[in-house]
Protein backbone atom coordinates (compact mmCIF):
# COMPACT_ATOMS: atom_id res chain seq x y z
CA UNK A 1 0.00 0.00 0.00
CA UNK A 2 2.93 2.33 0.44
CA UNK A 3 3.26 4.57 -2.51
CA UNK A 4 6.64 5.77 -3.79
CA UNK A 5 9.22 5.80 -0.96
CA UNK A 6 12.13 8.18 -1.47
CA UNK A 7 15.64 7.04 -0.68
CA UNK A 8 17.57 8.30 2.34
CA UNK A 9 20.11 9.70 -0.10
CA UNK A 10 17.55 12.08 -1.56
CA UNK A 11 16.48 13.29 1.86
CA UNK A 12 20.06 13.80 3.00
CA UNK A 13 20.87 15.80 -0.14
CA UNK A 14 17.83 18.04 0.36
CA UNK A 15 18.70 18.47 4.04
CA UNK A 16 22.27 19.57 3.25
CA UNK A 17 21.08 22.03 0.58
CA UNK A 18 18.72 23.53 3.12
CA UNK A 19 21.52 24.03 5.63
CA UNK A 20 23.72 25.59 2.98
CA UNK A 21 20.95 27.92 1.92
CA UNK A 22 20.48 29.00 5.54
CA UNK A 23 24.13 29.91 5.68
CA UNK A 24 23.91 31.72 2.36
CA UNK A 25 20.92 33.81 3.33
CA UNK A 26 22.62 34.79 6.61
CA UNK A 27 25.85 35.67 4.83
CA UNK A 28 24.17 37.62 2.02
CA UNK A 29 22.40 39.77 4.61
CA UNK A 30 25.73 41.29 5.64
CA UNK A 31 26.36 42.58 2.11
CA UNK A 32 24.73 45.93 1.34
CA UNK A 33 22.40 45.21 -1.62
CA UNK A 34 20.06 48.09 -0.78
CA UNK A 35 16.42 47.40 -1.61
CA UNK A 36 17.51 44.24 -3.44
CA UNK A 37 18.47 42.46 -0.20
CA UNK A 38 14.86 41.73 0.77
CA UNK A 39 14.27 40.21 -2.66
CA UNK A 40 17.27 37.91 -2.30
CA UNK A 41 16.20 36.89 1.21
CA UNK A 42 12.69 36.06 0.00
CA UNK A 43 13.93 34.13 -3.04
CA UNK A 44 16.20 31.98 -0.89
CA UNK A 45 13.38 31.40 1.62
CA UNK A 46 11.03 30.46 -1.24
CA UNK A 47 13.56 27.96 -2.60
CA UNK A 48 13.93 26.42 0.88
CA UNK A 49 10.14 26.26 1.20
CA UNK A 50 9.80 24.50 -2.15
CA UNK A 51 12.48 22.00 -1.15
CA UNK A 52 10.73 21.17 2.11
CA UNK A 53 7.29 21.04 0.46
CA UNK A 54 8.28 18.96 -2.58
CA UNK A 55 10.57 16.47 -0.89
CA UNK A 56 9.84 16.35 2.81
CA UNK A 57 6.09 16.83 2.45
CA UNK A 58 5.95 14.48 -0.58
CA UNK A 59 4.27 17.15 -2.66
CA UNK A 60 6.02 15.69 -5.72
CA UNK A 61 3.90 12.57 -5.79
CA UNK A 62 0.79 13.81 -4.04
CA UNK A 63 -2.57 14.28 -5.77
CA UNK A 64 -3.14 17.34 -7.98
CA UNK A 65 -5.78 18.35 -5.45
CA UNK A 66 -3.29 18.95 -2.64
CA UNK A 67 -1.02 20.83 -5.03
CA UNK A 68 -4.00 22.97 -6.00
CA UNK A 69 -4.78 23.61 -2.33
CA UNK A 70 -1.22 24.74 -1.61
CA UNK A 71 -1.18 26.99 -4.68
CA UNK A 72 -4.56 28.41 -3.65
CA UNK A 73 -3.25 29.33 -0.22
CA UNK A 74 -0.39 31.34 -1.68
CA UNK A 75 -2.64 32.96 -4.28
CA UNK A 76 -4.97 34.20 -1.49
CA UNK A 77 -1.99 35.40 0.53
CA UNK A 78 -0.90 37.34 -2.56
CA UNK A 79 -4.42 38.81 -3.00
CA UNK A 80 -4.47 40.00 0.63
CA UNK A 81 -1.02 41.57 0.36
CA UNK A 82 -1.43 43.07 -3.10
CA UNK A 83 -4.71 44.90 -2.49
CA UNK A 84 -3.69 46.19 0.97
CA UNK A 85 -0.36 47.43 -0.42
CA UNK A 86 -2.27 48.92 -3.37
CA UNK A 87 -3.91 51.16 -0.79
CA UNK A 88 -0.87 51.88 1.37
CA UNK A 89 1.45 52.69 -1.55
CA UNK A 90 -0.97 55.04 -3.32
CA UNK A 91 -2.05 57.10 -0.31
CA UNK A 92 -1.65 60.79 -0.89
CA UNK A 93 -0.68 60.23 -4.51
CA UNK A 94 -3.56 62.45 -5.57
CA UNK A 95 -1.94 65.30 -3.64
CA UNK A 96 -4.54 65.64 -0.89
CA UNK A 97 -3.83 64.43 2.65
CA UNK A 98 -6.03 61.47 3.60
CA UNK A 99 -7.12 60.69 0.00
Amino acid at each position, binding site marked *: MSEHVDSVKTYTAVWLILLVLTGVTTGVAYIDLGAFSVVVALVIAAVKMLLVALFFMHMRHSTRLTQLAAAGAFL*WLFIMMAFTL*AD*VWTRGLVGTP*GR
Partner: protein
Amino acid sequence: MNTAAIEQRENYLNAGYGLKSWLLTKDHKRIAILYLITVTIFFFIGGIFASLIRIELLTPQGDLVSSETYNKLFTMHGIAMIFFFLIPSIPATLGNFFLPMMIGARDLAFPRVNLLSWYLLVIGGAFALFAMLAGGVDTGWTFYTPYSTTYSNTWVIATALGIFVSGFSSILTGLNFIVTVHRMRAPGMTWFRMPLFVWANYATAVIQVLGTPVVAVTIVLLFCERAFHIGIFDPALGGDPVLFQHMFWFYSHPAVYIMVLPAMGVISEIISVFSRKPIFGYHFVAFSSMAIAVIGFLVWGHHLFVSTQSVYAGLVFSFLSYFVAIPSAVKVFNWTATLYKGSISFATPMLYAFGFIGLFTIGGLTGLFVASLGFDVHVTDTYFVVAHFHYVMVGGTIMAFLGGLHYWWPKMTGRMYPENWAKLSAAIIFVGFNLTFFPQFILGYLGMPRRYHVYPDEFQVLHVLSTAGASILAIGYLFPMFYFMWSLRYGEVASANPWGATGLEWAMPSPPPVHNFDEIPVVTHEAYDYSTVVGEGVEVG
Protein backbone atom coordinates in the same frame (compact mmCIF):
# COMPACT_ATOMS: atom_id res chain seq x y z
CA MET B 1 -51.33 7.39 9.79
CA ASN B 2 -49.63 4.78 11.83
CA THR B 3 -47.41 6.88 14.07
CA ALA B 4 -46.46 3.61 15.72
CA ALA B 5 -44.81 2.44 12.47
CA ILE B 6 -42.39 5.32 12.74
CA GLU B 7 -41.36 4.36 16.29
CA GLN B 8 -40.29 0.76 15.53
CA ARG B 9 -38.20 1.46 12.45
CA GLU B 10 -34.73 2.32 13.65
CA ASN B 11 -33.80 5.88 12.68
CA TYR B 12 -31.22 8.41 13.82
CA LEU B 13 -33.62 9.87 16.39
CA ASN B 14 -34.53 6.68 18.23
CA ALA B 15 -31.10 5.12 17.78
CA GLY B 16 -30.19 6.32 21.27
CA TYR B 17 -31.72 8.29 24.11
CA GLY B 18 -30.34 10.38 26.91
CA LEU B 19 -27.98 13.31 27.08
CA LYS B 20 -24.84 11.27 26.40
CA SER B 21 -26.21 9.94 23.09
CA TRP B 22 -26.71 13.52 21.96
CA LEU B 23 -23.69 15.30 23.47
CA LEU B 24 -21.18 12.68 22.27
CA THR B 25 -22.85 11.80 18.98
CA LYS B 26 -20.76 11.45 15.84
CA ASP B 27 -23.81 11.30 13.57
CA HIS B 28 -23.92 14.34 11.26
CA LYS B 29 -27.71 14.37 11.51
CA ARG B 30 -27.74 14.67 15.31
CA ILE B 31 -25.00 17.29 15.22
CA ALA B 32 -27.17 19.23 12.77
CA ILE B 33 -30.06 19.13 15.25
CA LEU B 34 -27.73 20.34 18.04
CA TYR B 35 -26.66 23.21 15.78
CA LEU B 36 -30.32 23.97 14.99
CA ILE B 37 -31.11 24.38 18.69
CA THR B 38 -28.00 26.52 19.29
CA VAL B 39 -28.54 28.89 16.37
CA THR B 40 -32.24 29.25 17.21
CA ILE B 41 -31.37 30.30 20.76
CA PHE B 42 -28.94 32.91 19.47
CA PHE B 43 -31.46 34.06 16.84
CA PHE B 44 -33.96 34.91 19.58
CA ILE B 45 -31.27 36.56 21.73
CA GLY B 46 -30.31 38.73 18.75
CA GLY B 47 -34.00 39.31 18.10
CA ILE B 48 -34.57 40.63 21.61
CA PHE B 49 -31.76 43.12 21.15
CA ALA B 50 -33.24 44.13 17.79
CA SER B 51 -36.68 44.79 19.24
CA LEU B 52 -35.16 46.88 22.06
CA ILE B 53 -33.30 48.93 19.47
CA ARG B 54 -36.42 49.47 17.41
CA ILE B 55 -38.48 50.49 20.47
CA GLU B 56 -35.72 52.87 21.53
CA LEU B 57 -35.76 54.55 18.13
CA LEU B 58 -39.45 55.39 18.38
CA THR B 59 -38.57 58.75 19.90
CA PRO B 60 -35.88 61.20 18.77
CA GLN B 61 -34.61 61.88 22.31
CA GLY B 62 -33.99 58.21 23.13
CA ASP B 63 -36.07 57.66 26.24
CA LEU B 64 -35.96 53.88 26.68
CA VAL B 65 -32.27 53.31 27.42
CA SER B 66 -29.15 55.38 28.04
CA SER B 67 -26.67 55.85 25.21
CA GLU B 68 -24.22 53.37 26.75
CA THR B 69 -26.91 50.70 26.83
CA TYR B 70 -28.02 51.51 23.30
CA ASN B 71 -24.45 51.16 22.04
CA LYS B 72 -24.27 47.76 23.71
CA LEU B 73 -27.64 46.76 22.25
CA PHE B 74 -26.71 47.31 18.62
CA THR B 75 -23.27 45.76 19.14
CA MET B 76 -24.63 42.60 20.74
CA HIS B 77 -27.44 42.45 18.15
CA GLY B 78 -24.80 42.46 15.43
CA ILE B 79 -22.51 39.92 17.10
CA ALA B 80 -25.27 37.48 18.10
CA MET B 81 -26.91 37.60 14.69
CA ILE B 82 -23.79 37.47 12.51
CA PHE B 83 -21.33 35.22 14.31
CA PHE B 84 -23.76 32.94 16.14
CA PHE B 85 -26.76 32.76 13.80
CA LEU B 86 -26.15 33.79 10.18
CA ILE B 87 -22.72 32.21 9.68
CA PRO B 88 -23.49 28.81 11.23
CA SER B 89 -27.20 28.60 10.41
CA ILE B 90 -27.56 27.10 6.94
CA PRO B 91 -24.16 25.42 6.47
CA ALA B 92 -24.07 23.87 9.93
CA THR B 93 -27.71 22.80 10.23
CA LEU B 94 -29.11 22.07 6.78
CA GLY B 95 -25.64 21.62 5.27
CA ASN B 96 -24.47 19.22 7.98
CA PHE B 97 -27.69 17.23 7.78
CA PHE B 98 -28.13 16.92 4.04
CA LEU B 99 -24.76 17.38 2.32
CA PRO B 100 -23.53 13.85 3.08
CA MET B 101 -26.85 12.33 2.04
CA MET B 102 -27.09 14.37 -1.15
CA ILE B 103 -23.72 13.08 -2.40
CA GLY B 104 -24.39 9.53 -1.23
CA ALA B 105 -22.03 9.40 1.76
CA ARG B 106 -22.73 7.80 5.14
CA ASP B 107 -21.30 10.76 7.06
CA LEU B 108 -18.89 13.66 6.77
CA ALA B 109 -15.19 12.85 6.31
CA PHE B 110 -14.30 13.68 9.95
CA PRO B 111 -17.30 13.10 12.26
CA ARG B 112 -15.35 13.84 15.44
CA VAL B 113 -14.10 17.13 13.97
CA ASN B 114 -17.76 17.86 13.19
CA LEU B 115 -18.70 17.38 16.84
CA LEU B 116 -15.71 19.49 17.86
CA SER B 117 -17.01 22.25 15.58
CA TRP B 118 -20.32 22.29 17.45
CA TYR B 119 -18.56 22.41 20.81
CA LEU B 120 -16.37 25.30 19.58
CA LEU B 121 -19.50 27.22 18.57
CA VAL B 122 -21.10 26.55 21.95
CA ILE B 123 -17.93 27.54 23.88
CA GLY B 124 -17.54 30.67 21.74
CA GLY B 125 -21.21 31.40 22.29
CA ALA B 126 -20.77 30.93 26.02
CA PHE B 127 -17.97 33.49 26.06
CA ALA B 128 -20.06 35.97 24.08
CA LEU B 129 -23.11 35.32 26.26
CA PHE B 130 -21.02 35.77 29.42
CA ALA B 131 -19.75 39.10 28.05
CA MET B 132 -23.33 40.16 27.27
CA LEU B 133 -24.60 39.28 30.74
CA ALA B 134 -21.55 40.64 32.55
CA GLY B 135 -22.00 44.08 31.04
CA GLY B 136 -21.99 43.88 27.28
CA VAL B 137 -19.61 45.31 24.70
CA ASP B 138 -20.12 48.64 22.96
CA THR B 139 -17.67 48.69 20.05
CA GLY B 140 -20.04 47.72 17.24
CA TRP B 141 -19.67 44.24 15.69
CA THR B 142 -16.78 45.69 13.66
CA PHE B 143 -14.49 46.41 16.69
CA TYR B 144 -12.86 49.36 14.91
CA THR B 145 -9.62 50.49 16.55
CA PRO B 146 -8.49 52.67 18.26
CA TYR B 147 -11.90 52.82 19.98
CA SER B 148 -12.04 49.08 20.68
CA THR B 149 -8.45 48.88 21.90
CA THR B 150 -8.02 52.16 23.79
CA TYR B 151 -11.25 53.98 24.54
CA SER B 152 -13.88 51.32 25.18
CA ASN B 153 -14.12 50.13 28.77
CA THR B 154 -16.49 47.21 28.13
CA TRP B 155 -16.07 43.45 27.70
CA VAL B 156 -14.18 43.64 24.42
CA ILE B 157 -11.67 40.87 25.08
CA ALA B 158 -14.25 38.33 26.33
CA THR B 159 -16.44 38.92 23.27
CA ALA B 160 -13.46 38.85 20.89
CA LEU B 161 -12.37 35.56 22.46
CA GLY B 162 -15.88 34.19 21.88
CA ILE B 163 -15.74 35.16 18.21
CA PHE B 164 -12.19 33.77 17.93
CA VAL B 165 -13.29 30.36 19.23
CA SER B 166 -16.48 30.25 17.16
CA GLY B 167 -14.38 31.18 14.11
CA PHE B 168 -12.59 27.83 14.38
CA SER B 169 -15.97 26.11 14.38
CA SER B 170 -16.59 27.74 11.00
CA ILE B 171 -13.12 26.79 9.72
CA LEU B 172 -13.45 23.13 10.70
CA THR B 173 -16.96 22.86 9.20
CA GLY B 174 -15.57 24.27 5.97
CA LEU B 175 -12.66 21.83 6.05
CA ASN B 176 -15.04 18.93 6.65
CA PHE B 177 -17.29 19.91 3.74
CA ILE B 178 -14.39 20.36 1.29
CA VAL B 179 -12.86 16.96 2.06
CA THR B 180 -16.27 15.25 2.01
CA VAL B 181 -17.28 16.69 -1.36
CA HIS B 182 -13.92 15.87 -2.90
CA ARG B 183 -13.36 12.42 -1.48
CA MET B 184 -16.67 10.84 -0.51
CA ARG B 185 -19.07 11.19 -3.39
CA ALA B 186 -20.99 8.03 -4.31
CA PRO B 187 -19.99 6.25 -7.50
CA GLY B 188 -21.54 8.05 -10.47
CA MET B 189 -22.02 11.28 -8.52
CA THR B 190 -19.91 13.47 -10.77
CA TRP B 191 -19.43 17.14 -9.97
CA PHE B 192 -22.20 18.16 -12.37
CA ARG B 193 -24.67 15.66 -10.98
CA MET B 194 -24.36 17.11 -7.52
CA PRO B 195 -27.35 19.17 -6.32
CA LEU B 196 -26.75 22.93 -6.37
CA PHE B 197 -27.16 23.02 -2.58
CA VAL B 198 -23.92 21.00 -2.39
CA TRP B 199 -22.20 23.37 -4.84
CA ALA B 200 -23.24 26.37 -2.73
CA ASN B 201 -22.02 24.78 0.51
CA TYR B 202 -18.75 23.77 -1.17
CA ALA B 203 -18.15 27.37 -2.29
CA THR B 204 -19.04 28.56 1.24
CA ALA B 205 -16.57 26.07 2.70
CA VAL B 206 -13.81 27.49 0.48
CA ILE B 207 -14.54 30.99 1.83
CA GLN B 208 -14.68 29.76 5.43
CA VAL B 209 -11.31 28.03 5.07
CA LEU B 210 -9.54 30.91 3.32
CA GLY B 211 -11.11 33.89 5.11
CA THR B 212 -11.77 33.02 8.75
CA PRO B 213 -8.10 32.54 9.79
CA VAL B 214 -7.38 36.16 8.90
CA VAL B 215 -10.02 37.48 11.29
CA ALA B 216 -8.66 35.06 13.89
CA VAL B 217 -5.18 36.61 13.68
CA THR B 218 -6.72 40.11 13.62
CA ILE B 219 -8.45 39.30 16.91
CA VAL B 220 -5.13 38.04 18.31
CA LEU B 221 -3.51 41.38 17.42
CA LEU B 222 -6.52 43.27 18.84
CA PHE B 223 -6.17 41.26 22.05
CA CYS B 224 -2.41 41.98 22.27
CA GLU B 225 -2.93 45.70 21.75
CA ARG B 226 -5.78 45.99 24.24
CA ALA B 227 -4.28 43.73 26.92
CA PHE B 228 -0.64 44.90 26.78
CA HIS B 229 -1.12 48.45 25.43
CA ILE B 230 1.30 47.87 22.59
CA GLY B 231 0.51 49.82 19.46
CA ILE B 232 -0.23 47.68 16.41
CA PHE B 233 -3.25 49.67 15.37
CA ASP B 234 -2.67 52.60 17.75
CA PRO B 235 -1.62 55.71 15.80
CA ALA B 236 0.07 57.26 18.84
CA LEU B 237 2.58 54.38 18.73
CA GLY B 238 2.96 54.44 14.97
CA GLY B 239 0.25 51.89 14.19
CA ASP B 240 -2.34 52.28 11.41
CA PRO B 241 -6.04 51.95 12.34
CA VAL B 242 -6.92 51.55 8.66
CA LEU B 243 -4.77 48.40 8.55
CA PHE B 244 -7.15 46.88 11.12
CA GLN B 245 -10.05 47.74 8.82
CA HIS B 246 -8.26 46.08 5.89
CA MET B 247 -7.56 42.87 7.84
CA PHE B 248 -11.07 42.87 9.37
CA TRP B 249 -12.92 43.36 6.09
CA PHE B 250 -10.66 40.91 4.21
CA TYR B 251 -12.63 38.28 6.13
CA SER B 252 -15.86 40.10 6.89
CA HIS B 253 -16.87 40.77 3.28
CA PRO B 254 -16.38 37.18 2.19
CA ALA B 255 -18.25 36.36 5.44
CA VAL B 256 -21.37 37.99 4.00
CA TYR B 257 -21.05 35.49 1.14
CA ILE B 258 -20.67 32.70 3.72
CA MET B 259 -24.08 33.86 4.94
CA VAL B 260 -25.84 34.23 1.58
CA LEU B 261 -24.33 31.46 -0.61
CA PRO B 262 -25.88 28.53 1.30
CA ALA B 263 -29.18 30.43 1.17
CA MET B 264 -28.86 30.52 -2.62
CA GLY B 265 -28.23 26.78 -2.56
CA VAL B 266 -31.45 26.19 -0.61
CA ILE B 267 -33.39 28.39 -3.05
CA SER B 268 -32.02 26.48 -6.05
CA GLU B 269 -33.36 23.26 -4.47
CA ILE B 270 -36.76 24.68 -3.58
CA ILE B 271 -37.35 26.45 -6.93
CA SER B 272 -36.49 23.28 -8.82
CA VAL B 273 -38.62 20.92 -6.72
CA PHE B 274 -41.73 23.11 -6.57
CA SER B 275 -41.70 23.91 -10.27
CA ARG B 276 -40.72 20.30 -10.96
CA LYS B 277 -38.12 21.36 -13.48
CA PRO B 278 -34.33 21.21 -13.50
CA ILE B 279 -32.74 24.57 -12.66
CA PHE B 280 -32.34 26.62 -15.83
CA GLY B 281 -28.60 26.90 -16.60
CA TYR B 282 -27.39 24.41 -13.94
CA HIS B 283 -23.73 24.91 -14.91
CA PHE B 284 -24.02 28.71 -14.77
CA VAL B 285 -25.64 28.65 -11.34
CA ALA B 286 -23.00 26.21 -10.07
CA PHE B 287 -20.10 28.25 -11.46
CA SER B 288 -21.63 31.49 -10.19
CA SER B 289 -21.41 30.09 -6.66
CA MET B 290 -17.70 29.49 -7.17
CA ALA B 291 -17.27 32.87 -8.86
CA ILE B 292 -18.89 34.64 -5.90
CA ALA B 293 -16.57 32.75 -3.53
CA VAL B 294 -13.45 33.78 -5.45
CA ILE B 295 -14.28 37.36 -6.48
CA GLY B 296 -15.74 37.89 -3.01
CA PHE B 297 -12.14 38.10 -1.78
CA LEU B 298 -11.20 40.96 -4.09
CA VAL B 299 -13.73 43.57 -3.06
CA TRP B 300 -13.41 44.24 0.68
CA GLY B 301 -12.16 47.78 0.11
CA HIS B 302 -15.66 49.07 -0.64
CA HIS B 303 -16.12 49.23 3.14
CA LEU B 304 -13.23 51.69 3.33
CA PHE B 305 -14.14 54.25 0.67
CA VAL B 306 -14.22 57.18 3.14
CA SER B 307 -11.76 55.79 5.69
CA THR B 308 -8.69 57.63 4.22
CA GLN B 309 -8.05 54.65 1.92
CA SER B 310 -6.36 56.00 -1.19
CA VAL B 311 -8.48 57.15 -4.12
CA TYR B 312 -6.81 54.68 -6.49
CA ALA B 313 -7.46 51.69 -4.21
CA GLY B 314 -11.06 52.91 -3.99
CA LEU B 315 -11.33 52.86 -7.78
CA VAL B 316 -9.99 49.29 -7.95
CA PHE B 317 -12.32 47.99 -5.22
CA SER B 318 -15.37 49.76 -6.66
CA PHE B 319 -14.67 48.32 -10.11
CA LEU B 320 -14.26 44.76 -8.78
CA SER B 321 -17.35 45.09 -6.58
CA TYR B 322 -19.43 45.23 -9.77
CA PHE B 323 -17.85 41.97 -10.95
CA VAL B 324 -19.09 40.17 -7.84
CA ALA B 325 -22.63 41.45 -8.44
CA ILE B 326 -22.89 39.73 -11.84
CA PRO B 327 -22.95 36.09 -10.62
CA SER B 328 -25.69 36.97 -8.12
CA ALA B 329 -27.71 38.54 -10.94
CA VAL B 330 -27.15 35.43 -13.09
CA LYS B 331 -28.53 33.27 -10.30
CA VAL B 332 -31.67 35.38 -9.90
CA PHE B 333 -32.32 35.34 -13.64
CA ASN B 334 -31.81 31.57 -13.80
CA TRP B 335 -34.22 30.98 -10.92
CA THR B 336 -36.84 33.10 -12.60
CA ALA B 337 -36.26 31.30 -15.90
CA THR B 338 -36.71 27.95 -14.14
CA LEU B 339 -40.35 28.86 -13.43
CA TYR B 340 -41.02 29.14 -17.17
CA LYS B 341 -43.15 26.23 -18.34
CA GLY B 342 -42.89 24.58 -14.93
CA SER B 343 -45.59 22.94 -12.78
CA ILE B 344 -45.47 25.39 -9.89
CA SER B 345 -46.89 24.43 -6.50
CA PHE B 346 -47.40 27.10 -3.79
CA ALA B 347 -46.32 25.10 -0.77
CA THR B 348 -44.70 27.20 2.00
CA PRO B 349 -41.10 26.57 0.93
CA MET B 350 -41.97 28.00 -2.50
CA LEU B 351 -43.49 31.09 -0.89
CA TYR B 352 -40.25 31.61 1.01
CA ALA B 353 -38.35 31.13 -2.26
CA PHE B 354 -40.46 33.80 -3.99
CA GLY B 355 -39.89 36.07 -0.99
CA PHE B 356 -36.17 35.39 -1.18
CA ILE B 357 -35.89 36.23 -4.89
CA GLY B 358 -37.87 39.44 -4.49
CA LEU B 359 -36.05 40.72 -1.42
CA PHE B 360 -32.62 39.48 -2.45
CA THR B 361 -33.05 41.28 -5.78
CA ILE B 362 -33.69 44.58 -3.97
CA GLY B 363 -30.82 43.83 -1.57
CA GLY B 364 -28.47 43.02 -4.44
CA LEU B 365 -29.47 46.05 -6.51
CA THR B 366 -28.92 48.40 -3.56
CA GLY B 367 -25.52 46.75 -3.34
CA LEU B 368 -24.86 48.31 -6.74
CA PHE B 369 -25.80 51.68 -5.22
CA VAL B 370 -23.26 51.44 -2.42
CA ALA B 371 -20.55 50.05 -4.70
CA SER B 372 -20.55 53.32 -6.64
CA LEU B 373 -17.88 55.58 -5.11
CA GLY B 374 -19.58 58.95 -5.33
CA PHE B 375 -22.86 57.56 -3.98
CA ASP B 376 -21.25 55.55 -1.19
CA VAL B 377 -19.55 58.69 0.16
CA HIS B 378 -23.01 60.00 0.97
CA VAL B 379 -24.68 56.82 2.20
CA THR B 380 -21.97 54.83 3.94
CA ASP B 381 -22.51 54.56 7.71
CA THR B 382 -26.13 55.65 7.25
CA TYR B 383 -29.40 53.70 7.41
CA PHE B 384 -29.18 53.14 3.65
CA VAL B 385 -26.40 50.60 4.29
CA VAL B 386 -28.35 49.16 7.26
CA ALA B 387 -31.32 48.62 4.94
CA HIS B 388 -29.10 47.13 2.21
CA PHE B 389 -27.52 44.46 4.37
CA HIS B 390 -30.76 43.63 6.17
CA TYR B 391 -32.44 43.11 2.80
CA VAL B 392 -29.70 40.63 1.87
CA MET B 393 -29.32 39.00 5.32
CA VAL B 394 -32.90 38.96 6.64
CA GLY B 395 -34.72 39.12 3.30
CA GLY B 396 -32.27 36.66 1.83
CA THR B 397 -30.56 34.29 4.25
CA ILE B 398 -33.30 34.07 6.90
CA MET B 399 -36.09 33.64 4.32
CA ALA B 400 -34.04 30.87 2.69
CA PHE B 401 -33.25 29.31 6.07
CA LEU B 402 -36.94 29.19 6.94
CA GLY B 403 -37.76 27.93 3.45
CA GLY B 404 -35.13 25.19 3.74
CA LEU B 405 -36.35 24.32 7.24
CA HIS B 406 -39.89 23.90 5.96
CA TYR B 407 -38.73 22.01 2.85
CA TRP B 408 -36.62 19.46 4.78
CA TRP B 409 -38.65 19.33 8.01
CA PRO B 410 -40.53 16.18 6.91
CA LYS B 411 -37.22 14.45 6.16
CA MET B 412 -35.58 15.58 9.43
CA THR B 413 -38.46 14.73 11.76
CA GLY B 414 -40.78 12.44 9.85
CA ARG B 415 -43.60 14.95 10.46
CA MET B 416 -45.30 17.50 8.23
CA TYR B 417 -45.61 21.11 9.48
CA PRO B 418 -49.13 22.67 9.43
CA GLU B 419 -49.36 24.14 5.91
CA ASN B 420 -51.83 26.95 6.56
CA TRP B 421 -50.12 28.29 9.65
CA ALA B 422 -46.85 28.19 7.74
CA LYS B 423 -48.26 30.16 4.80
CA LEU B 424 -49.73 32.73 7.19
CA SER B 425 -46.42 33.26 8.99
CA ALA B 426 -44.55 33.52 5.68
CA ALA B 427 -46.91 36.28 4.59
CA ILE B 428 -46.60 38.12 7.93
CA ILE B 429 -42.82 37.90 7.77
CA PHE B 430 -42.78 39.27 4.21
CA VAL B 431 -45.02 42.22 5.07
CA GLY B 432 -43.32 42.96 8.40
CA PHE B 433 -39.90 42.82 6.78
CA ASN B 434 -40.68 45.31 4.04
CA LEU B 435 -42.36 47.71 6.44
CA THR B 436 -39.32 47.55 8.70
CA PHE B 437 -36.54 48.04 6.23
CA PHE B 438 -37.85 49.90 3.21
CA PRO B 439 -38.32 53.19 5.14
CA GLN B 440 -34.69 52.83 6.20
CA PHE B 441 -33.56 53.34 2.59
CA ILE B 442 -35.26 56.75 2.62
CA LEU B 443 -33.86 57.48 6.10
CA GLY B 444 -30.42 56.59 4.85
CA TYR B 445 -30.48 58.90 1.88
CA LEU B 446 -31.82 61.66 4.14
CA GLY B 447 -28.58 61.24 6.06
CA MET B 448 -29.68 59.46 9.25
CA PRO B 449 -26.36 57.99 10.53
CA ARG B 450 -26.03 54.42 11.76
CA ARG B 451 -25.78 53.56 15.45
CA TYR B 452 -27.52 56.79 16.54
CA HIS B 453 -29.35 56.77 19.84
CA VAL B 454 -30.63 60.31 19.43
CA TYR B 455 -31.69 61.72 16.05
CA PRO B 456 -33.20 64.90 14.58
CA ASP B 457 -36.95 64.80 14.90
CA GLU B 458 -37.67 65.08 11.17
CA PHE B 459 -36.67 61.38 10.93
CA GLN B 460 -39.17 60.25 13.55
CA VAL B 461 -42.07 59.28 11.29
CA LEU B 462 -39.90 56.90 9.24
CA HIS B 463 -38.52 55.38 12.43
CA VAL B 464 -42.02 54.81 13.79
CA LEU B 465 -42.94 53.04 10.51
CA SER B 466 -39.84 50.91 10.80
CA THR B 467 -40.60 49.97 14.39
CA ALA B 468 -44.16 49.06 13.45
CA GLY B 469 -42.77 46.77 10.78
CA ALA B 470 -40.33 45.26 13.24
CA SER B 471 -43.12 44.27 15.62
CA ILE B 472 -44.99 42.53 12.79
CA LEU B 473 -41.76 40.80 11.75
CA ALA B 474 -41.15 39.63 15.34
CA ILE B 475 -44.62 38.10 15.52
CA GLY B 476 -44.07 36.46 12.16
CA TYR B 477 -40.91 34.77 13.46
CA LEU B 478 -42.66 33.39 16.54
CA PHE B 479 -45.16 31.36 14.53
CA PRO B 480 -42.69 28.77 13.13
CA MET B 481 -41.20 28.32 16.62
CA PHE B 482 -44.57 27.10 17.88
CA TYR B 483 -45.91 25.06 15.02
CA PHE B 484 -42.61 23.29 14.41
CA MET B 485 -42.65 22.12 18.05
CA TRP B 486 -46.33 21.29 17.69
CA SER B 487 -45.67 19.25 14.54
CA LEU B 488 -43.13 17.03 16.35
CA ARG B 489 -45.98 15.41 18.22
CA TYR B 490 -49.16 16.17 16.35
CA GLY B 491 -47.92 16.78 12.84
CA GLU B 492 -49.13 14.51 10.04
CA VAL B 493 -46.65 11.68 9.47
CA ALA B 494 -44.52 12.45 6.43
CA SER B 495 -43.81 9.99 3.64
CA ALA B 496 -40.30 9.41 2.31
CA ASN B 497 -40.79 11.94 -0.49
CA PRO B 498 -43.71 14.33 0.26
CA TRP B 499 -42.66 16.91 -2.36
CA GLY B 500 -41.72 14.61 -5.25
CA ALA B 501 -38.11 15.75 -5.04
CA THR B 502 -35.18 14.06 -6.75
CA GLY B 503 -32.28 14.22 -4.26
CA LEU B 504 -30.68 11.07 -2.81
CA GLU B 505 -31.88 12.23 0.61
CA TRP B 506 -35.49 11.66 -0.53
CA ALA B 507 -34.76 8.07 -1.51
CA MET B 508 -34.40 7.05 2.16
CA PRO B 509 -37.20 6.92 4.74
CA SER B 510 -38.04 9.92 6.94
CA PRO B 511 -36.54 10.32 9.46
CA PRO B 512 -33.45 8.71 7.92
CA PRO B 513 -31.63 5.70 9.40
CA VAL B 514 -28.40 6.16 11.29
CA HIS B 515 -26.11 5.10 8.41
CA ASN B 516 -28.13 6.91 5.72
CA PHE B 517 -27.72 4.21 3.09
CA ASP B 518 -27.76 0.44 3.57
CA GLU B 519 -26.11 0.21 0.15
CA ILE B 520 -24.08 3.14 -1.18
CA PRO B 521 -26.24 4.14 -4.23
CA VAL B 522 -24.84 4.32 -7.74
CA VAL B 523 -25.94 7.55 -9.39
CA THR B 524 -26.94 7.37 -13.03
CA HIS B 525 -29.22 10.41 -13.50
CA GLU B 526 -28.73 14.16 -13.85
CA ALA B 527 -29.26 16.30 -10.76
CA TYR B 528 -32.95 17.25 -11.19
CA ASP B 529 -34.44 14.44 -13.30
CA TYR B 530 -38.09 14.40 -12.23
CA SER B 531 -39.03 11.58 -14.57
CA THR B 532 -37.53 9.26 -11.98
CA VAL B 533 -39.84 10.52 -9.24
CA VAL B 534 -43.21 11.53 -10.66
CA GLY B 535 -45.39 8.59 -11.51
CA GLU B 536 -45.25 6.86 -8.11
CA GLY B 537 -48.18 7.77 -5.89
CA VAL B 538 -46.88 11.07 -4.66
CA GLU B 539 -49.04 12.88 -2.16
CA VAL B 540 -48.12 16.51 -2.36
CA GLY B 541 -48.38 18.32 0.96
